[in-house]
């Protein structure tokens, strides 16, 4: 046996503790190669950084028939030692050199046997396939169409469910209904109140700046009253409820799906639509108009604060102007919108929850998706209702 020259030594300049420095040294006795490892071959010392050097050195040794390890002077090791062992084993196989497994310590042999016990499964997952533009567009179209299909079938199932409920043939969960009513009403008042007050305030400020120039500051009352009653009360409440309640519906139903609670309902022949979706949908649709009325009032109050504080308008003047400018049609428009928005928020939340995947991340995605879908549909529905109203001159 003879030690190879200094060029055979590996780079260990980044290590300071001389006892722990992992060293690899290739020597040769006749046709037998001996790979001597010394020092700490652990994750901490990163001995495998010398792997390339070892493999290059082995490549230089032509005509060898056998390779053995000498680990007598190794200070400590962990599973990272298997990296160099397995790569050297692969090198031996490629170069037709017998790999002397018996020279390895018992623990290393045990780990190698364990890692080889179950052969690698060809799952095809690691192969990265690049999709063509046509495939990307095609997949996106298929996904969009199936999403619309799922949405439409959900609407259909909801209608069927309400049909069953109206005939008294559904397992309607009244406890959930009352609980959702409470969550969508009393518990939502503070946040709806705050946002509506600030919306009325902002509306009045914007109006005041413009109208004051023409001496028409009093019309701030008209702007706030009609704006809140027809549009902003319903839209702001809808957006708040989409973020608050729609997301909660998606997360609640989604986590029930993850924990197989929905499967448990199905196996008892209880429709999840009747038991989980309809009570939520009904409760939110009934509560939304009340929340919007409350929002309108608080918004008008916000406008009054600006009018009283900055425009020298008395409370009586503001109130008279408000009541004269706002008709029942305006209030009814807001209420119709609110009921539609309530249905949209509940449907988006429940549909996303029912379509949720089977893991924690999917629940989060379902909640996010419910909010995005809810808000988008609210704005779109608002525009559609406005156009219909204009066409019908209502």
């Amino acid at each position: 046996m003879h030690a190879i020259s200094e060029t055979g030594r590996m780079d260990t300049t980044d290590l300071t503790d001389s006892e722990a420095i992992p060293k690899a040294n290739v020597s040769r006795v006749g046709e037998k190669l001996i790979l001597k490892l010394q020092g700490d071959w652990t994750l901490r010392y990163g001995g495998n950084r010398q792997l390339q050097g070892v493999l290059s050195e082995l490549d230089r040794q032509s005509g060898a028939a056998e390779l053995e390890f000498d680990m007598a002077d190794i200070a400590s090791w962990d599973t990272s030692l298997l990296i160099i062992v397995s790569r050297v084993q692969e090198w031996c196989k490629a170069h037709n050199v017998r790999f002397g497994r018996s020279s390895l310590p018992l623990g290393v042999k045990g780990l190698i046997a364990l890692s080889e016990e179950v052969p690698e499964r060809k799952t095809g997952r690691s192969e990265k396939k690049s999709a063509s533009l046509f495939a990307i567009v095609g997949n996106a179209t298929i996904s969009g169409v199936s999403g619309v299909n799922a949405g439409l079938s959900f609407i259909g199932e909801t209608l069927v469910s309400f049909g069953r409920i109206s005939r008294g043939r559904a397992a309607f969960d009244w406890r959930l209904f009352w609980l959702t009513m409470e969550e969508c009403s009393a518990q939502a008042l503070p946040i709806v109140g705050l946002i509506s007050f600030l919306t009325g305030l902002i509306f009045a400020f914007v109006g005041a700046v413009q109208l004051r120039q023409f001496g028409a500051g009093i019309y701030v009352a008209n702007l706030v009253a009609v704006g809140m009653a027809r549009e902003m009360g319903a839209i702001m409440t809808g957006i708040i409820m989409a973020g608050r309640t729609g997301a909660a519906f998606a997360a609640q139903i989604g986590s029930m799906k993850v924990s197989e609670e929905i499967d448990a309902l199905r196996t008892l022949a209880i429709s999840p639509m009747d038991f989980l979706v309809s009570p939520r949908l009904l409760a939110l649709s009934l509560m939304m108009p009340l929340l919007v009325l409350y929002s309108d009032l608080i918004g008008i109050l916000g406008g009054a604060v600006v009018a009283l504080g900055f425009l020298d308008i008395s409370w009586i003047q503001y109130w008279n102007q408000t009541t004269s400018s706002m008709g029942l049609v305006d209030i009814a428009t807001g209420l119709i919108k609110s009921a539609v928005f309530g249905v949209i928020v509940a449907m988006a939340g429940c549909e996303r929850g029912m379509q949720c995947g089977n893991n924690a991340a999917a629940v989060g995605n379902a909640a996010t998706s419910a909010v995005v879908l809810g808000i988008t549909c609210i704005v779109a529905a608002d525009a559609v209702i406005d156009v219909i109203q204009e066409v019908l001159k209502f």
Partner: protein
Amino acid sequence: MFTPSDSIAEKQSTVSRKDSGDSAPAIEVKNLEMAYGSYVLMRNMTFEVSAGQVFIIMGGSGCGKSTLLKYLIGLKEVEQGEILYHGRSFSKASPEEREKMQRTFGVLYQGGALWSALTLAENVALPLEQYSKLSAGEISEVVSIKLALVGLKGFEEFYPAEISGGMRKRAGLARAMALDPALLFFDEPSAGLDPLTSRRLDDLILRLRDSLGTTIVVVTHELPSIFTIADTSIFLDAETKQMIAHGNPRELVKAGRSDPKVREFLLRGDPGKTPIGLPREK
């Protein structure tokens, strides 16, 4: 971390010498009281576990097995008593020291507790990325080796939701072993697994212990596992709030060697029966 040797016993003794600087037990629990607020679960627990042993915490449902595990891994603060690892106090250590000690732990939770948004490879790689200075290529190699050790080579790119319960547990074990911990903790490893998968997991635990010399703590009430893998064990009794047995379950099951409750537990309430997991006496 350990030194190479053909003798496991030698290896084990070297481990404790290396880690502690003396021959202190791998785990030492002194007068530990377990409680939730004012409700005391277990009093005056004292036991030791030697390095390289498989230690079983057993007892009936609700006796505090998993709670003891939480104390051992630092998820619950010790109010009374002390926990030491290799002679160094864990419960009285500074937060920084504690964190360092916790990096020598690997924990396999009951359901695997894999991060669902990450692939199996990413799950195993995360501790390595956080606590080692390995390059991305080296981490990838280590991850492949860990997954191969638990028989999941080829499943690197799978998400936890796409694999079976048994595979999730094995992947959880690969993650627990990511940093080559000196101590591995298992919470109900066999729960929910079929007998064959459960047996394979037991075999894996033993082979990892034999190859790596890791000290292993297992919370379980699965009798076949207890008799197969235990070197030593303790039995927690909810009624007396005491640890009423300490020793090898094969010894504890023999008549007159332990509290009758322990025997009753190990024999599934039937004193005439051969314990499940033990060969039938001829």
